């Protein structure tokens, strides 16, 4: 392809073009990502298999053997990770090998299944679920900070949500319609705010700076989804609408300053959903006969508002491009 460049452009930059084309001849063939993928798929398959194995044999004679086996595998993995650990700092550390990353994930997942099984079968941590969810959570948070592992941190935050009574994995947040319970809505809003606070503190105090994104990601999503749920659920939702819009505005200004495209997008989309709900809800309050006029109005509203949001995004896309970042 380098010849093509030269034919087209006989210009003073030829030597530079030469440099970038020759410089990129792949001398070495790296299988780094292939190995990562193999290990990741392996961990996922293994833990799924283990979970099915426990589930299928839960009341049979072999279950003690199985559970001992899983406990042993988890202990071996923890031991390997501890043996190959880096000294602890509050900065980002580079793991000694890729293998530690994935064995840690395997160990954490197996431990969660193991504790869950012990609770189910023997009620080891009392009759309530609180302690049984708190222990894996503590283990996961400790492991995440000790071994500096963002994947484990996500697991730990998910576990924190379960401990508080809500399921915060991104897909289940959207799928399940568990927001009819008002207590869950309040918990969700509060959890979202706390997670944002932790994200802010992580950066401010320089304690695992790179964990901030994960905290903020969970925080923003949980907060906005809980607010939206409140708007859909309560009859008088003006307070929640104001809370959502003010939070969206505050975060938006912050996001533009930090030039993060991802948060810019999700904040805008959440705000857009809230706005559209309010508009359609108000229109239906005025006239709930679903007449042709109402239909025309709502269709036109969606077309024009979506075009408006696109222009807004184009504006900010150009603005943020100057400091191209994630």
């Amino acid at each position: 392809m380098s010849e093509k460049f030269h034919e087209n452009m006989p210009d003073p930059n030829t030597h530079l073009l030469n440099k970038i084309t020759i410089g990129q001849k792949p001398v070495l063939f790296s299988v780094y990502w292939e190995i990562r993928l193999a290990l990741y798929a392996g961990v996922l398959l293994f833990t799924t298999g283990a979970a099915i194995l426990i589930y299928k044999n839960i009341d049979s004679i072999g279950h003690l053997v199985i559970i001992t086996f899983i406990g042993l595998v988890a202990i071996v993995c923890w031991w390997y990770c501890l043996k190959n650990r880096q000294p602890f700092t509050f900065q980002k550390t580079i793991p000694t090998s890729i293998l530690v990353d994935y064995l840690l994930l395997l160990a954490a997942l197996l431990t969660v299944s193991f504790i869950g099984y012990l609770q189910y079968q023997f009620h080891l941590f009392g009759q309530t679920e609180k302690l049984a969810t708190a222990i894996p959570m503590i283990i996961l948070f400790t492991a995440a900070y000790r071994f500096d592992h963002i994947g484990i941190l996500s697991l730990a935050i998910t576990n924190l949500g379960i401990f508080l009574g809500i399921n915060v994995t991104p897909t289940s947040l959207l799928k399940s319609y568990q927001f009819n319970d008002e207590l869950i809505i309040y918990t969700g809003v509060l959890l979202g705010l706390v997670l944002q606070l932790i994200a802010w503190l992580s950066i401010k105090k320089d304690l695992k700076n790179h964990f901030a994104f994960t905290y903020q990601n969970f925080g923003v999503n949980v907060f906005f989804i809980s607010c939206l749920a409140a708007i859909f659920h309560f009859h008088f939702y003006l307070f929640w609408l104001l809370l959502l819009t003010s939070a969206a505005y505050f975060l938006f200004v912050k996001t533009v300053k930090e030039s993060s495209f991802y948060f810019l997008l999700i904040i805008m989309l959440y705000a857009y959903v809230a706005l559209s709900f309010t508009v359609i809800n108000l229109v239906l309050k005025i006239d709930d006969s679903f007449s042709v006029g109402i239909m025309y109005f709502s269709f036109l509203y969606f077309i024009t508002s979506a075009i408006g949001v696109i222009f807004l995004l184009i504006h900010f896309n150009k603005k943020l491009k100057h400091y191209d970042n994630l």
Partner: protein
Amino acid sequence: MIIYNKKWLVNKRIQIRALLAFKIGVISKEEKENILQSYPVGFFSSNFFIRIGFGLLTFIIILFTSGFLGLLGSTFSNNFSALLLVTGIFCYIGLEVMVGKQHHYCSGVDDILLYASILFVVNGLCFNSSFQYNWPNSVNALLYFIVTLMASLRFLDRLTTIGAYVSLFAFLFFCFLQLGTVAKIAMPFVMIFLSVIAYFFSTVAGKNEQLLHYFDCISVVKILSLITFYAAGNYFIVRELSDSMFQLHLKPSDGIIFGWFFWVWTLAVPILYVANGIIKKQRYFIHVGILLFAVSIATIRFYHQVLPVEVALLLGGSTLIAIGYGLLKYLKSPKNNFTVLQVSSDKNFTNIEALIAVSVATTQKMPTQHTTEFSGGSSGGAGASGTY
């Protein structure tokens, strides 16, 4: 033919290379800036996340525009295919304006407009108002092929290329069906033969500098040809497709003609792909081979439940972890130019230094690289940075 500014397309390739070269430390910052300024790109492209947002919003607009049109006239509410056609034409006009005048390029708006206009127009042509096909299957496939091919030629899109490839194969499949019993038995071999033709076509075309702008689409065709080459002889596909297409009413225990051949094919082709990829150092062969190997395992499990699913999962997981561990240990120091070191990353400077040291040491005995390595790996902006 191509709607985009061709000079910008070339410049974009140069810019991607320059950024990559800067990342692995081949050129200095000034040199990078120099290249970026000498080869400007005027496209409006958006960040990955903004692209998703644009896509969603464009989808909303198209959805409500079609609804709005449906409300407007009674002709549309009675004639569904006319509504589809008109919406499709609207989308296409929007696409031409956004790409031609506003210079959108992979911004999210143009992607969704392109796919929507194709789907609306083709389905408007193929369906009548009572949701039944207007034409026989072969004509439908031909219509799909013509529209997606034209779209690929004009917008250089990879997804429409996939559509064109698949619909071309469907068209040829339905045409051969007309020829009778011998054609039915020979069908897998015909499809294998066609895949071979597609592979050689893409290999030749991928070396032609005249088709520089189509290199991404051509590498898509190449990968698809590898997949159809395997799929045409996969036991599951041959058995179930012939069962449903030719009304054979097979019982679960029944075999098919040349059954042994298709079993050998199912097992051997993925392994040969991986072996070829390792020998020739072609990444897409390795990836496609591994993917198809997983498909082969699924095929075997579909007919012979040798192990309960949880044991199979545990065994498979342990094997994968063992393979990963073994490769990590084996390739700790590069062997035969394979390495576990991460190439082209700005995060791990120690790795890069080690890498450069090793590269210098091994350059002398390196055979010349295939140019296909480039076209195979550099699938668009996002693909290019990850593969080296």
